[in-house]
């Protein structure tokens, strides 16, 4: 608790409530301003966040619609701005920072911070954080998966002044913009975000005029104490104890096969929670590392999912502590590349889902699909000027099955549920691509008593272009989206490409960059469904039949995954029926065999796969085997790791 508040009388309850809500409204107004004036389409699709801070940089209020990945990081960057500019700030100043090593997320998230002065006294800060479309570096969109350090990734902005007493510092802004592929938009976003921070400043100064500076400052402290009190009460009501789990990143590209573990041990003691990442792997030779700020954000964002009604501010953060080994995938230091921090981020979030599911079974949930995004760039030959194009897109997928209901179908990633998917008609207008398919992927959901949500598949054709390259940022090609309580995994992530003129598609997997592509190439991106919850053999056969009618599940996989035999009566009239006897027999058969299948020699399974007798879904769901999906070679170490988890999360729960 803040020590100051103990020596003064608490605010009148009405004044407190009014200030608390007005702080939040001021942040919501910033969001509104950004959404309406931004240039970066990433920001437009809601990859941004805003906050109000006290004079020490602590978060007083954050937007309720903010993207999950930023929520626990804004106070860090505000404090770094204070560290650099303390004593020389003046009204009308605005600073920029994107430094992941100072508590930011990745270089693409640029934060503008405005000190708020009442007369000459600094009373707080407003901060606006948005994901810019490009910040330079070796590839369009600034996501080079082969980068080992930040020098190849993008421009690092340690705290700099962008406005001095209201005057635009065009020299500094111009230099930043000049290091990007889209300087016009960058300058536009600077104005958009700076004007957003002014909106909050205006609101706070209005409150100061009405309630006086002292009451407003006290209100900033009290709203943090208030949230802290509420969180501590909830935690104290839970049993003390320790929970642990492990999740994986697919690989370290500099090493052989074998997944990269992130270990988490959570301890609840009294009204505090500690997360210990001991055992997590050292940083890896790709951008899939997370600096401490982003790891902290993953922890609090994961927790918030179990306290959805509580507001976020530094009071929440005070109840949580973290320890991690030095320079691990969850605690990377300068200059390790961290642009792909969201891979560890999502692993941590899902691990927290898993641990908290045991504490709060009524909110239990299995693993969600992995965020994926595609970046392609080159010259658009559709017009004579051959402009540079940048195609940058992410897709929704399925969330995990839940206790008593199926997972959410085709929903944005846990990275940020507010992140909108992009319209295909927009894609086709600005990029030389045509979408040939954008639909729910049949059988993508992890089977379970409560199945995962469905994923989808988007297939695009590259039109007239030259010098085009493509990068793909994803994971869980091997650490496949898992089920819990006996539920099954969904499917491996990964992109396939069919070259112009060829009949056969080639599997490129879940991570690559700078891959040359040409006019007429067609690339297909499936997204995984969510993991299943509970034993699929216990799913109501009628629910399986309904899924067949709506074509979420095929008749073939209804039998293989659920042991439910369905007969088509009249597809035109949507009439299908469950064959009860055949279902009972098939379920008995699967029940008798399935443990053996899940422990079968991976080499034998690989052989069946190469012969075409089983497919990738059979391999992960039935045999718990991870293969190189292009060559069909068994990945032994990876499979051993995968099976260890599968035994715990799935096999152990089968009757």
């Amino acid at each position: 608790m803040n020590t100051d508040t103990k020596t003064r009388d608490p605010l009148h309850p009405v004044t407190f409530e009014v200030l608390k809500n007005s702080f939040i409204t001021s942040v919501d107004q910033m969001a509104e301003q950004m959404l309406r004036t931004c240039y970066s389409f990433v920001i437009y699709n809601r990859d941004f966040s805003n906050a109000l801070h006290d004079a020490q940089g602590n978060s007083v209020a954050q937007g309720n619609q903010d993207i999950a990945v930023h929520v626990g990081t804004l106070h860090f960057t505000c404090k770094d701005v204070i560290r650099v500019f303390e004593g020389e700030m003046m009204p009308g100043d605005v600073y920029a920072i994107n430094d992941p090593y100072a508590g930011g997320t990745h270089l693409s998230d640029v934060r503008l911070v405005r000190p708020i002065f009442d007369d000459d006294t600094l009373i707080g800060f407003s901060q606006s954080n948005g994901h810019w479309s490009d910040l330079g570096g070796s590839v369009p969109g600034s996501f080079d998966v082969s980068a080992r350090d930040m020098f190849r990734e993008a421009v690092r902005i340690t705290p700099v002044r962008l406005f001095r007493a209201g005057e635009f510092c065009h020299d500094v802004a111009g230099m930043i913009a000049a290091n990007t592929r889209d300087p016009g938009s960058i300058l536009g976003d600077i104005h958009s975000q700076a004007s957003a921070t002014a909106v909050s400043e205006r609101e706070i100064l209005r409150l100061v005029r009405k309630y006086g500076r002292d009451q407003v400052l006290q209100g900033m402290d009290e709203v943090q104490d208030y949230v802290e009190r509420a969180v501590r009460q909830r935690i104290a009501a839970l049993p003390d104890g320790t929970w642990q789990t492990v999740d994986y990143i697919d690989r370290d590209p500099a090493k052989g096969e074998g997944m990269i573990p992130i270990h988490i041990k959570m301890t609840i003691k009294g009204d505090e929670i500690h997360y210990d990442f001991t055992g997590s792997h050292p940083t890896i030779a790709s951008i899939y590392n997370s600096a401490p700020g982003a790891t902290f954000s993953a922890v609090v964002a994961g927790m918030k999912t179990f306290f959805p009604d509580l507001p976020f501010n530094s009071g929440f953060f005070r109840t949580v502590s973290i320890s991690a080994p030095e320079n691990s995938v969850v605690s990377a230091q300068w200059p390790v590349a961290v642009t792909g921090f969201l891979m560890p981020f999502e692993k941590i979030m899902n691990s927290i889902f898993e641990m908290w599911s045991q504490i709060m079974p009524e909110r239990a949930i299995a693993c969600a699909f992995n965020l994926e995004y595609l970046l392609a760039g080159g010259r658009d030959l559709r017009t004579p000027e051959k402009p540079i194009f940048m195609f940058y897109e992410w897709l929704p997928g399925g969330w995990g099955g839940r206790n008593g209901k199926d997972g959410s179908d085709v929903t944005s990633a846990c990275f940020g549920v507010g992140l909108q998917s992009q319209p295909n008609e927009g894609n086709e207008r600005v990029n030389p691509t045509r979408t040939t398919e954008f639909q729910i992927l049949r059988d993508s959901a992890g089977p379970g008593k409560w199945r995962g949500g469905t994923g989808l598949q988007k297939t695009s054709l590259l039109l007239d272009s030259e010098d085009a390259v493509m990068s793909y940022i994803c994971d869980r090609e091997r650490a496949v989206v898992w089920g819990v309580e006996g539920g099954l995994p969904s499917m491996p992530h990964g992109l396939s490409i069919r070259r112009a003129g060829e009949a056969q598609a080639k599997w490129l997997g879940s991570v690559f960059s700078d891959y040359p592509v040409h006019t007429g190439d067609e690339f297909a991106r499936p997204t995984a469904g969510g993991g299943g919850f509970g034993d699929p053999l216990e799913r109501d056969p009628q629910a399986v039949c309904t899924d067949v009618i709506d074509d979420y599940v095929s008749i073939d996989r209804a039998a293989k995954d659920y042991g439910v035999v369905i007969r088509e009566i009249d597809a035109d009239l949507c009439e299908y029926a469950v064959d009860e006897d055949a279902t009972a027999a098939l379920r008995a058969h699967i029940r008798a065999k399935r443990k053996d299948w899940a422990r079968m020699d991976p080499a034998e399974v690989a052989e069946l796969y190469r012969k075409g007798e089983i497919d990738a879904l059979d391999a992960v769901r039935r045999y718990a085997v991870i293969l190189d999906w292009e060559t069909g070679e068994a990945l032994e170490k990876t499979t051993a790791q995968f099976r260890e988890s599968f035994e715990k999360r799935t096999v152990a729960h089968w009757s």
Partner: protein
Amino acid sequence: MSSTRVAVDVGGTFTDICIMDEETGAIRIEKIGSTPDDPMKAVMDGVGIAGIDLSQVTMFSHGTTVATNALITRNLPRTAMVTTEGFRDVVEIRRATKEDLWDTYKDVAKPYIPRRDRLTVRERVDADGNILESLDEEGARRVAEVLKKRGVKSIAVGFMNSYVNPENERRMRAILKEVMPDVPVSLSAEIMPEIFEHERFSTAMANAVVSPVVVDYVSRLGEKLEEGGYSRELLLLHTGGGVMTPHAVRDFAARLAGSGIAAGAIASRFIGNLCGFPNTIGFDMGGTSTDVSVSYQGEPRITKDWYIEYGYPIRFPSIEVLTIGAGGGSLAWQDEGGSLRNGPQSAGAHPGPACYKNGNEVATNTDANVVLGRLGTSLAGGKITLDPALAEAAVRRTVAEPFGMDLHDAAEAIVRVANANMANAVRLLSISRGYDPRDFALCAFGGAGALHGAAIARELSIPTVIVPPSPGVTSALGCLLVDIQHDFSDSFMRRADDTDPADIEALFQRIESEARAQLKREGVEPANMVLSRTVEMMYQGQWRSLQLDAPAKVTDVDELVDAFHREHEREYNFARKDAGVSFFRVAVKAVGIVPKADLQKHPERPHTPEPLGQRPVWFDGQAHEATLYQREGLEAGAQIEGPAIIEQFDSTTVVPPGMSATVDAFMNIRIETKV
């Protein structure tokens, strides 16, 4: 008997009927319980009870919740959707977001049309409108046969890029009509010709699912009215703030969704204009929620970002209304962090506030107002009596004891938290849109609007509050005072420096001739047609456009660009004069003026009315002796000094200390807040 105009507004609980004498402009009101199973019953019963001779009615307008309720309850006829192959799930994938970002157990509802009834055909148009693949007619026929076999009652068609070239969609409709001539077909390119497939398909889907329901309702009601002797067109209020005839309802059924919410906003705009305040904030506070709307320079603020259910946009331009969970029945509570909260949970109509004596023991805003003496204990002309002892007990238990306050401080705390929440809602619609509340009048209505209006106005520095004559039925008045209105638009995506003004002008003219044809079909005389143009523009690279008025003849693109810079500066506090500007869309609002009778005007005689008595009323921690008036007894020109309480059948107006009020020629109470 002289001719009359009738407006009927159907709400969830009551159906309000507003009858205006064409000669005198006098208005009378009837209220009857709604009949949700068949809303038409209450409409016709109300007409009977009000003694309306339909043969003397020259205009019958109607705000209906039929479309809204059908969408909310999902009581919808089996409807199918036909899309381009590969795009069956556009309406299910949506933009993939959720309304509640953090609650993993709260889902977005499934689309109105389930996956099994979404079929596909081969066809393709590119982003420039070139037909890459003509409609696969054999496949289309096969789809039509399947849908016929399934007995679907309505069909939506959504093809990729149809907004630039609707040819394939039209061909699809022709084939569907050959097989099923009587089934309505909603084409995305005709319902909402704009880029972005989900928003367009979703609008077409909403239109298709409500079409059979609404068309059936409108035809049955039209027949009943005709039987009763009504010989004009039935007019239906839509969310854009105008009315449309049954003819247009056939094509644009989903425009009626949300019609009830629009009525209040239209009424407050009308009243504001009548009183000489072109800038009005509508503040409609009922039992469970408050609707806030803004009219600027005589026109309501319009938005295209709205929906009945999250995830399924209906992109018809609609009056922007912000609804928050604060009403007379909102509950006060202490949360686990120890903070005093108000709403959004509500005691509703049952059990209602504690003082209603139906067993609720938690304090509501109504209870707090009773404790403060602002609300009397006898409402609705004595039909409802409130128990002040129960109100007191509830305020003590819920707030006074937990927070260690005395009774009246606690009651005032409840009201002030509610007022602050509502004031924040007004701020989001006004200040954050670049409007200064000091330039506005607050029009307070709904059952509880006049109780709280003056305090909210003071909080926001709004100088004037207008309380219309019958605050509880103001929405019905909104239905009475509208014109036929349609909105047409088309995409126009081009850089300003690469635009020939003649191209914009030609597009406007094409849209306008379509608009005139529509109005003509609805029987509007050319002299009564008013078309107004708007254009949407943005800085190159921005993602949201800004709408501004366009001249009746476009000859100069630079003029529009300058106007855009100015509007951007006003709305967002900055402009980038050195940056490139693009056009995005052009739109035409087509109004068919319905000649209006004037409201009855009473001579204003400045005087101090005779009070009925006095009672102690608490403001700012002190009891004040407030003068009491009965509104029905007040005459135009009455001048009242606060503190005063003005009671009437369906509402109570509070004039706080230091403010004064007058009754104007239209019998509105105007409170000067003196801020």
